[in-house]
């Protein structure tokens, strides 16, 4: 095997071959062995996609999902950064507030999902709120970590050159924090996504939850797989974007 898949593109080729094999097995099994009510062959899923997208309600559900995700993420980043800066600002605030953050972080958030729905209703607000409540934690944790990583010698150096407090924050502390912030954003994107998906699936009266439920009840695996593939693709793309941004902004790091 090593001989066939040699060289720089070896792994890539093997990956393609593996996926092709997997799809082939899936296609074969779905067509001839498994009950079509449960599994749809890949060809079926692909064939069904145009039909799926032609339904405006489905498109609206996906668009709504995307919008909720964006807003939840934005809230998580802004609020998380503000909280993180406040917590990390002084040793006192760190020691008194950070343990509370850790405590909240330890609670499995899924348990309060029904509560969020109760408070914010069945609409988009609860999904945004729930998503944001997930995303806020990695941001806070990373901003605080970034602030702690500021090296005293840099602050001292800036002081000896006559820097004011504002200048030290702008020129020394914030730039050091940016890689941590972007790492936090990468994590926040993943968990905000999870939060929004959770909320969407829970509410089966509208949105994506409605369609996953309907497609299941109709025993329409092609549509269901199609929808899931779309969501998975969105997740992978967003994560990749976040990852690249993180790499870009961490360029100056030698560690």
């Amino acid at each position, binding site marked *: 095997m090593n001989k066939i898949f040699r060289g720089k593109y070896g792994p890539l080729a093997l990956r393609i071959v593996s996926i092709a094999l997997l799809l082939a097995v899936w296609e074969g099994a779905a067509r001839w062995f498994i009950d079509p009510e449960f599994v749809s062959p890949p060809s079926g899923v692909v064939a069904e996609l145009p039909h799926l997208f032609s339904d405006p309600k489905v498109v609206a559900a996906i668009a709504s999902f995307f919008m909720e995700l964006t807003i939840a993420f934005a809230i998580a980043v802004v609020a998380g950064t503000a909280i993180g800066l406040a917590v990390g600002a002084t040793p006192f605030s760190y020691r008194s507030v950070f343990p509370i953050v850790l405590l909240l972080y330890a609670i499995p958030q899924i348990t309060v999902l029904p509560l969020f729905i109760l408070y914010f209703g069945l609409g988009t607000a609860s999904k945004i709120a729930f998503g944001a409540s997930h995303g806020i934690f990695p941001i806070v944790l990373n901003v605080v970590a970034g602030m702690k990583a500021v090296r005293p*010698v840099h602050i001292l150096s800036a002081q*000896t050159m006559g820097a004011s407090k504002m200048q030290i924050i702008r020129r020394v502390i914030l730039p050091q924090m940016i890689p941590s912030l972007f790492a936090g954003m990468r994590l926040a994107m993943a968990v905000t996504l999870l939060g929004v998906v959770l909320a969407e699936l829970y509410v089966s009266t509208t949105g994506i939850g409605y369609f996953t439920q309907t497609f299941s009840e109709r025993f329409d695996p092609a549509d269901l797989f199609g929808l899931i593939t779309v969501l998975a693709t969105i997740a992978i793309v967003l994560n990749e974007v976040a990852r690249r941004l993180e790499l870009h902004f961490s360029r100056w*790091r030698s560690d």
Partner: protein
Amino acid sequence: MTGATRAEVAIEVSGASHSFSQGTRALAVLSEVSLSVRSGEMVSLLGPSGCGKSTLLNIVGGVLTPDAGSVLLDGHPLHGIMPHKISFVFQEHALFPWNTVFENLMVALEFQGVPAAERADRATVALDAVRMSEFRAFYPAQLSGGMKQRVALARGLSLETDILLMDEPFAALDEQTRMVFGEDLSVLLAKTGKTIVLVTHSLSEAVFLSDRIFVMTARPGKIKAVVDVPKEHPRTPDFVSSAQFGAIRGELYELLHDEIRASVESAQHVPKRDDG
């Protein structure tokens, strides 16, 4: 020209004592240190590890206020940091890794309050002086130790202060880079006429660069002796192999030998103030 002709005292330290608290105990680091540095002189503070030479440098720079004693700059008492009179060159870690070489200098000038229009010129001139102009767009992580130190020096020079304080600037460099850097430094500083205080634990460096060397005792540090190096700047590599160099170095070694032994055998470690 070096300080031999100018008699004004740029820096005067009188009876400086300082101790650091470690838990419940106080560790005396400096004990009644007095010294004076003439304007335009380059002096070294030479001593074993932990003798308080970095602390003394920080006191001279206004970063630290001594428990007892005073510091006068040009006759005026020193109360704190003076960014327009004193600039520091720390060990290599002091460059901002998120800025390029050029940006590092620009930011320093911004801190000092130099008008925006002048900054670029001052930065460029300083980089030219240390021959790092072609690296202006590089990040510190992409530079070698010697190059980083040159940038740090350029930054210190660009601030155009009368006094330059350098805390073991060669410590992170290898032997060969040190030799070259030392020569460059000598040339450069002879041109600018600044008053320079250098902290080092290397005898050769001290002899090569300084007009006078303050030899310190082991902790708590006092000035044990002052050794003159009556050779004009800029000094060339052949100075190192001269008899004069050897003699002075030998004298330093004799003075320091017992102090080094004492500090090696003492059990305490005092963390440096600017530990990253």
